[in-house]
């Protein structure tokens, strides 16, 4: 909250403070996860953390910045590849997961100079092309053995329990760190810049938004997040087969999570990851029908709840748990009286 003579800007609300406290308690409990949870649950939560990373970074890219990409698997695959590559060259395996993500983030910077020239559908498809290209280039590395793939054998140095706990903690720290970075980025000037760009790029430019810089920030962040998720995934799966990692299925998952949870809402992406995780846990064994159901669910959500589960909650209740927006109250405004409290989404 901050005040100027005529206006009070509310950012944190009572609900959001409670939500933050609950999140803090949950974070402490989760941080101690390997000490009190079953091995199976620890494995499953590691997967959930990776899903949250995928959902939150894709949501930042698409839901907030409007850069629809169907090629984020490029970064996911590259993250896994560099983790394997670094570990093979003697870098300690867990630091190599984070290093791999940094390399992917760094590579995305020159890539952004090319890709951000593209607009709309061209960008979306262009990113897919990039992912196919990355896939082919990775296959050139003899370490990978083409589509046969390889394994993150350095993990074998750790006893199974230690490995499980370390991977869990890496995923937890990665998720926590990315959630914090994305949250404060969205609350800050970059957040207002990218939302303006999403809604109308030319208008954003004409009110002084440095469009390319803002887009690049989010593009690199999303690449880093994708790379981190891929590196963590290979640490849980151990095997690296390029076809699996560079599969568009990863982006399909990201789309599903963001769409169902609520595209362009911070809470929505997290909720979407949890929903996806739950669906997978319950129905994942159903094979083809699981995928059919997933597609159908995405379709139903797109048609019936275009703003997703959380968008719907926001519209109905004006509830903001982790607010990145601004609510204002005018105290005295040049003869006008107080602003009537009007709700977001009032038709």
């Amino acid at each position, binding site marked *: 909250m*901050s005040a*100027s*003579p*005529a*206006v009070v*800007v509310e950012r944190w609300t009572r609900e959001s403070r409670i939500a933050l406290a609950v999140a803090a308690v949950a974070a402490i409990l989760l941080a101690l996860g390997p000490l009190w949870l079953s091995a199976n649950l620890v494995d499953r939560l590691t997967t959930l953390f990776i899903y949250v990373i995928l959902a939150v970074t894709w949501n930042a890219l698409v839901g907030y910045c409007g850069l629809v990409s169907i090629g984020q698997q490029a970064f996911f695959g590259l993250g896994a590849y560099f983790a394997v590559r670094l570990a093979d060259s003697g870098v300690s395996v867990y630091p190599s997961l984070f290093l791999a993500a940094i390399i992917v983030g760094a590579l995305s910077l020159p890539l952004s100079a090319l890709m951000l020239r593209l607009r709309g559908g061209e960008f979306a498809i262009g990113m897919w092309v990039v992912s196919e290209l990355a896939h082919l280039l990775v296959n050139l590395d003899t370490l990978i053995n083409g589509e046969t793939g390889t394994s993150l054998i350095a993990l074998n140095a750790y006893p199974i329990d230690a490995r499980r706990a370390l991977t869990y903690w890496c995923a937890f720290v990665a998720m926590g760190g990315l959630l914090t970075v994305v949250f404060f980025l969205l609350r800050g*000037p970059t957040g*207002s*810049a990218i*939302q*303006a760009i*999403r*809604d*109308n790029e*030319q*208008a*954003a*430019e*004409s*009110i*002084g*938004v*440095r*469009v390319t810089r803002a887009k690049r920030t989010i593009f690199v962040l999303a690449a880093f997040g994708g790379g981190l998720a891929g590196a963590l995934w290979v640490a849980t799966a151990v095997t690296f087969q390029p076809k699996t990692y560079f599969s568009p299925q990863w982006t399909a998952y990201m789309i599903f999570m963001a769409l169902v949870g609520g595209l*362009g809402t911070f809470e929505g992406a997290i909720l979407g990851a949890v929903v996806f995780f739950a669906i997978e846990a319950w129905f994942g064994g159903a094979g083809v029908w699981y995928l059919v159901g997933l597609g159908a669910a995405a379709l139903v959500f797109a048609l019936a709840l275009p703003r997703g589960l959380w968008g719907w909650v926001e519209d109905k209740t004006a509830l903001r748990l982790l607010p990145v*927006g*601004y*609510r*204002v109250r*005018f105290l005295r*405004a*040049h003869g*006008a009286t107080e*602003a*009537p*409290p*009007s*709700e*977001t*989404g*009032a*038709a």
Partner: protein
Amino acid sequence: MTLAAGGMLLEATGIHKRFNALVVLDGVDFSVRANEAVGVVGPNGAGKTTLLSVLVGAHAPTAGTVRLRGQDVTALPTAERCRRGIVRTHQIPRPFSGMTVFENVYAAARHGGALGRDAAYARAAESIATTGMVGVANRRAETLGLIDRKRLELARALATGPTALLLDEIGGGLTDAEASELVDVILELKRRGLAIVWIEHIVHILLRVAERLVCMDAGRVIADGAPDKVMADPTVIEAYLGGGAG
């Protein structure tokens, strides 16, 4: 930042603009002094909006230069020109639909105004109050009607802290009462020292503000001077008023 009233603020010389084979601007000279209000009229397709786009940097001219306070800004991108004090509104409002009115205006203050958080809050609040949008400050922009979308265009432009405000048919589609209300706001901005360039088809509201009138036709300036003289100019009558347009 400020210039003495009457100093040359924005000056475009020899502006040509072609879109492939189509010549839209054909050697236009245009200028506005500090705190001057210039009206721009002319039939549809005369090149008025394109001229505005060249002035703010949304279009690069095929030939010619744009100077701001004597400095060549022809190669400067729109966002940077905005940060130096030239801002436009759009003929068809372009709100940031998913953001609230306050968030729209705050973005302009924060980025175009290059202000810190608290100063941007204050500037945004002031712009919202000036344009009469206090009551809808927390509404998502996609829920606004036309008059509020026009007000939002104005509020957002204002929040960037401009020295030159370029208006593209801000009165279009409004009732006389609504348009008149916007004119009051624009007059207030002129009183505060802003230079105003205003493209408008509704000439009688334009004449309440404009001290000088520029008439364009087929990519050229065909008249430039005191409003009554320009409106009485036979070429203007032939091209614009008598031409069946507008």
